[in-house]
């Protein structure tokens, strides 16, 4: 029953099965990368799509059962990140038909899901602010955006790898198995557009929501000076400049790939620095 605890056994079962599902997907994509066996060409992408649907159902059921979007603590956020990476990958694979990069993207999703499944503890006892539907939309778009930008970083890395392999006429596994340079460039571009679009939405929704809360006196302080907000805006601007460069000045895929790797590195570094050394109102659990 929605909103009742009856779904708990099912949620627990899916929580145990999800890492296994991800493991199967990673192994399948690994087989596709190494040997491209015919059995895997359809079944592995189908399995991953099914996994994304099951994961989405799990998150919806968890949200209904615990009455908040399941990102109220780190482990809930981890399973959401795994879902976000997988769903963005599934969309890109469906749009561009490239199966050879799945192993690189689903492996981090698998790691996130293993950690989430091992340590997750859902609770109804979360702050009131985290139960807001604004919060749900803000975090969902933000995590989808960050996942897509992380994927853009991964594709950027693969682009650089293949670029140097092609420049040096090396025909190893990277050359044999990765899609062509043009496809990698397009995957990188699509991931950037999707990620930046979601991040833009997340920032807009977040700003509107927090402004409303501040004006009603429900939270204190000025979010403008929040380090996480500031760093996100800087990163957003950096990616925005990157997209603008492509659209206005026809920047090359190589430049875009390099920038997405650097920007992803900055994104990771800033999150770590803020998480470890600075105070932010963006916190989980």
């Amino acid at each position, binding site marked *: 029953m929605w909103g009742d605890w009856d779904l708990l056994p099912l949620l627990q079962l899916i929580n145990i099965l999800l890492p296994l599902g991800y493991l199967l997907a990673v192994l399948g994509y690994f087989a596709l990368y190494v*040997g491209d*066996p*015919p059995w895997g060409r359809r079944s592995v992408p189908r399995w991953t799509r099914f996994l994304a649907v099951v994961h989405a159902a799990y998150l919806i059921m968890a949200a209904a059962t615990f009455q908040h979007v399941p990102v109220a603590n780190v482990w809930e956020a981890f399973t959401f990140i795994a879902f976000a990476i997988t769903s963005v990958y599934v969309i890109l694979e469906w749009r561009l038909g490239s199966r050879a990069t799945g192993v690189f993207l689903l492996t981090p999703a698998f790691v996130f899901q293993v950690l989430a499944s091992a340590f997750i503890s859902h609770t109804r006892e979360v702050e009131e602010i985290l139960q807001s539907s604004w919060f749900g939309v803000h975090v969902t778009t933000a995590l989808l955006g960050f996942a897509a930008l992380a994927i853009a970083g991964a594709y950027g890395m693969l682009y650089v790898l293949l670029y140097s392999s*092609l*420049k040096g*006429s090396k*025909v190893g596994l990277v*050359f*044999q198995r990765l899609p*062509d*340079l*043009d*496809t990698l460039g397009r995957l990188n571009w699509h991931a950037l557009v999707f990620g930046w679009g979601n991040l833009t939405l997340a920032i807009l929704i977040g700003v509107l929501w927090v402004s409303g809360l501040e004006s009603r006196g429900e939270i204190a302080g000025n979010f403008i000076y929040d380090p996480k907000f500031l760093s996100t805006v800087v990163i957003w601007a950096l990616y925005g400049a990157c997209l603008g460069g492509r659209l206005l*000045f*026809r*920047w*090359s*895929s*190589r*430049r875009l790939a390099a920038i997405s790797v650097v920007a992803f590195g900055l994104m990771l570094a800033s999150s770590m620095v803020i998480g470890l050394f600075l105070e932010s109102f963006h916190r989980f659990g």
Partner: protein
Amino acid sequence: MQLLLLGVSHHSAPVSVRDALVMDGEDVLNLLSQLDVGCEPLTELVVLSTCNRTEFYATVTNLQEAGQALCEACEHHLGVPHLGDPEYAFIHRDEAAVRHLFHVAAGLDSLMLGEHQVLGQVREALAMADRAGTAGVLTTRLFHAAAKAGNRARNETGISRGAVSVALAAVRMARKVLGDLSKQRVLIVGAGETGRLVSRHFAKEHTASLTVINRTFAGAQDVVASLGGTARRFEELETALQDADVIVTATSSPETIIGRDHLERAIRGRRGQPMVIVDIASPRDVEPAVGKLTDVFLYDLDSLESIVAQNRRAREKEIPKAQKVLERELTHFMEWYRGLQVQPTIRALRLSFEEIALQEAERHAKHFHQSEIELLQRYSRELVNRLLHHPTARIKQVDRYTSDGMAKLVAVRDLFQLASEGPAPRRPGSKIAS
């Protein structure tokens, strides 16, 4: 009836002998129409003729006589006696003949391991025989099975992966950098033999444009006349460089014709769009320093040959895997082939009916008393005997050594979905569950 393969290939005969036996589609049709196929000793015949092999796949009632007839036909129609010469020709029968054709279809027997063209030639050979009316049940099934085996070997193993010729490697490298070549503009510099070959490969990719430049303008015109595209004069080279995404050079110029400064000017307006340059001339046509330019991918003959050698080694490693795939297909085909005999067909038919009768008796056993079950079994057995009495007698009259007889056996097997050995027989004392 036996399956006979008589042929010559690059493994058995020198090029002079092979060349003498090469037939185009029309030659094959002529030969097939003039042979007395359908009567003893030759009941079916398919001729596979490529630049490296001429092979006759026949179903025969008498090996000696059929071999003789084929040799005489070759001598008469082509004027070459070599097919009967054991020094050049090879003969395989039944399973060995099937295995050989499967290997041929998979490209394992080709000069260029895993090449694709032969698969089309196998299909074409059957189509020719079909047109001439010389293909029958066995050869049709054999060639279909060979095409399927060849396809599977290519799809399931790396036997056809990677380019194994310099010209193809040039196309693959361009595709690896630029993706879909149908959107790319290709410039070929040099209209010699290599230039023509590369042009042909790029033309197959339906590139956005194909431009050929040659010192002799007529040479360039000659290439584009057959492939489509534009011929330009050698003096226009620098302008043409600016309009190309892929440049292939294959001239016999003693010095380089494209320098770094040419390319720097050419790529200025490209805004980082990658450009592929393939220099397959010896000595080089393109200055090696061009490869240092950002977003310019330069491949020379050495790098392409090294890629080809790596691909060739990789394909060779895949041979055992491909052979396994072919053996599975061979087993499958041979089961069907061996099943095309009168007694196994009758046995399979009876076993199939008895199995159905037993299953039905089992299904209804619960409605009968224990003492009646034996009666039920006897009834079902006798019913099967009565039903199959006439068909069995007719099948016994079938002459499997004729194409018509074989077609009847195939029809019986297809109609009743008989496996080659039929369903596993039940143990004599097996009981019906009550």
